[in-house]
């Protein structure tokens, strides 16, 4: 779900009129969708959050160039796209195989990620929390643990499973979550 452009325009008008602290409300309104978009390319949430902050600051400094009536979330993602590329470039000298792989994936899939993100408003993403809470216990544990680095191995150890099984469980959970988010059968 997207924020009605008229509403965000009205808010931006108030900000332009001097109520600068209202920009924090804009941040609050768009943070979840922007952080999700960035985490879907970087996976490291710390890096995604740092970039999200940079994007919001860049947007603030360039707010006069945002054309009223357009999609503010898409405008933010445009700034984010550029920042993601810069981020990968800045790390190039020290990048490991995972970073290089993510960079290539982001490059190849940029336009499709952008189109998909149009539907990922905050309310849709927040719905995920409810869907996660309804997953079967084992799947919920896998989803909450995440797939970063050593986590699948640690979880596999706890659940007496293989790492491949953890990935499979997460995949299954993701399918159930998508169904739940589309208003289908509960997981």
């Amino acid at each position: 779900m997207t924020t009605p452009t008229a509403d965000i325009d009205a808010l931006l008008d108030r900000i332009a009129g001097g109520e600068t602290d209202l920009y924090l409300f804009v941040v609050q309104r768009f943070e979840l969708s922007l952080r999700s978009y960035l985490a879907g390319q970087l996976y490291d949430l710390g890096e995604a959050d740092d970039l999200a902050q940079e994007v919001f600051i860049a947007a603030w400094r360039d707010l006069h160039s945002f054309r009223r009536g357009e999609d503010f979330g898409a405008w933010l993602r445009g700034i984010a796209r550029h920042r993601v590329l810069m981020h990968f470039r800045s790390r190039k000298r020290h990048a490991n195989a995972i970073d290089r792989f993510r960079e290539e994936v982001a490059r190849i899939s940029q336009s499709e990620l952008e189109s998909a993100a149009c539907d990922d408003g905050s309310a849709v993403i927040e719905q995920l929390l409810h869907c996660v809470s309804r997953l079967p216990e084992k799947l919920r544990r896998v989803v909450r643990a995440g797939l970063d680095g050593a986590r699948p191995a640690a979880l596999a150890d706890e659940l007496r499973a293989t790492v491949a099984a953890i990935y499979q469980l997460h995949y299954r959970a993701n399918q159930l979550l998508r169904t739940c988010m589309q208003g289908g059968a509960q997981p």
Partner: protein
Amino acid sequence: MNSDLHMTPDLAVFLQAWTGGGPVPDVDRERLLHRLEDDAVFRAECLAEIRMLGMLKAVQAPPPRWLDITDVLGVSASAVDAAPVRELPRAVMARLARETIAAGRSRRHLDRPIAAAAAVGIVVGMLCTSAVLGFATRPLSRETMLIREGFEEPPAPGVTGVPAGPGRWSGDYSEVVGVRQGVKPAGGSCMLRFQRADHEGSPASRPHRSGDAMRVVDVGMLSQSIDRGVVMVSLSALFNAAGFPADERYDGAVTIYALDADLPLDRATEEIVYREALTSTTGDWKSLDRDPGTWQPASARLLLPPGTTRVLLKVSLRRMPVGRQGLDSLPERVTFAGHFIDDVQASLVITESTSVTQRRVAP
């Protein structure tokens, strides 16, 4: 799109390469990237997964504190006071709240639950009034600070494991200290130093590699809101370490457990809490750097399930193996030479007007 509940082999390898969860040979990476460019169906499958992983990452962690943004905006330091963004715009929220109340009496009934929330903690965020701005997707919500702990006041945390009840920190061996080993408290003059990864009465039969500080908060008075599925708890803490050897690694994280009234905490161990909790979540583990000048945040948030009457908040520091070494390379009882936590904050957000499940969800 693959409708089977089993991943194709290439998708499995793709996810391992992307998440870093397993060794993937360079040749496989190259092959997958070529396939990603050439095969639209495969690309759609991969993107569906990484988008979901990104959303799960973001939605399960609270937003960062946005301190750089408030600097740029020039929000006054006194108003900000290094608090999370939901607390930051107090003046903004207060103004919006006034506008909302002035706009109509229909929302006045929302003041009533604030009294209940205030009994749990101090109401710090008044109203997130999207309605006044015309947003349909962010209904009225309220943030209540549960804990803001800087370890400035006694008593020091107990060292007997899981706290027997609300109101006091307890966990593994720790001590409250001032400036120590080049590390200054994040705020005030005190911080908590982890000493060991075990506590009084720890069973000798299992390894102890994680030092924990825990606190229980009673949320029973919010049971009606909790049962409606509209109460979210957030927890954050700051971690720091004095320099430690290159062949050692330490990670910090926070965990939230939702507990019902049936679990007797006075006899509970962490294993029992883990097993009996209605649900729980652990935020990202943050690997600590060796710079005593930087405090590193870790956070998590949890939607409380119906039946929750208490939450157990846990701040953990664990030693991890380095490189390809396994857990068995670590000592059975880990000690901490110079590892600290400070500024532990817990809050809850109650979304009052429309439950998330009632919101329209895009197809």
